[in-house]
């Protein structure tokens, strides 16, 4: 087969795959539209650098994108805040908060405080 035909067939398949995926996503999204749903999962506390580190994973379980997702954490008098610029559908972002006190012996709260729609 002529080389240009081979590359043409490959190109058609690639462009068709992209187009079909977008069409499929569009049809599914029409059925499942809704707001973003940023969810926090807190990991195991680690003792390091003279303090305590609390890792977290932020996942968007909603069908749309969130911007400027604000994650806040508090432990007694200590508090921390992080802003994730951009969180697409299904995207995961990892981070950590650091405290002087041991979070295992206090009331630790980690939550999403706000986000903005694109």
């Amino acid at each position: 087969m002529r080389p240009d035909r081979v590359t043409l067939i490959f190109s058609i398949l690639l462009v068709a795959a992209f187009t079909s995926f977008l069409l499929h996503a569009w049809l599914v999204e029409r059925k499942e539209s809704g707001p973003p749903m940023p969810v926090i999962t807190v990991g195991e506390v680690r003792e390091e650098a003279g303090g305590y580190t609390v890792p977290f994973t932020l996942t968007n379980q909603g069908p749309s994108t969130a911007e400027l997702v604000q994650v806040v954490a508090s432990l007694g008098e200590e508090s921390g805040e992080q802003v994730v610029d951009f969180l697409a559908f299904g995207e995961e972002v990892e981070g950590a908060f650091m405290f002087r006190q041991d979070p295992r012996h206090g009331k630790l709260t980690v939550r999403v405080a706000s986000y903005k729609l694109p």
Partner: protein
Amino acid sequence: MAEHTWHKEVCDLARGAAGGFLFGIPLLYTMEVWWIGSSAHPAQALVALAVAAIVVYGLTMLNGFRGEDKGIPPIRESLSDTVQALALGFLCASAVLLVLQEVTWQTPFSEFVGKAVFEGLPFAFGVALADAQTQPVDNQALEEVEHKHPVLADLTASFTGSVFVAFSIAPTDEVPMLSAPMTPFALGVVVATSLLVSYLIVFVAGFGDQKKRKSSDLILQQPAVETALCYLVSLIAAGGLLLYFGRLDGHDPFTLWITQIVVLGLPATVGGAAGRLFL
């Protein structure tokens, strides 16, 4: 009609990819485009794809990437070149997004497709404009332009081209953003990609004085040596620009210097390769 051989096909695709890199690389270093790609509604991406396909069709009718000047090609040929330009745009943009770790194996597929489409479309314009951007130069005319110091001329052109392309990228936040998660392996991949793209533009794509370059007797102008030497010059240009814009200073750790220079070195190398051909 030109004979269709694998060598010609590879050269044509390389020329298209080189045109895509020259046109599309600045947008690959623009975080707003990543975000548009991630958040775009599928319908938006489909409309962008449809409109871009029409534009690319028009460009392949007038220019194209196959280096053949035979007037307006038949509709069927333009259509197949359009599909190939789009596919090449998606492939090259996806590859660079992967190399820069803006897309990883953890990225949701829908986000990957959005990014590949919005970054790939300007790439496809570059592919369709490859001949116009980098018209193969008449070798006879080039032979008349002899530099007394060809290696020095190459290095100067490489430096100028690197500065020209990297100047608008160096002061942006994208360089430290892309550098931050880079592992030594990922940096190695960026270096290899930079060298490959540079070689592709200067020695494979069939632009400018490629034949003359390949037949040069000078050791420093041998393809591999010249590519490595000019990459070094592009890295120096990238480092200089990062210093100039205060993105790096003497207090920063050595690893930060290396990662940022290598990351900015990719677009600088594309500029450097273009500089060697056209300056």
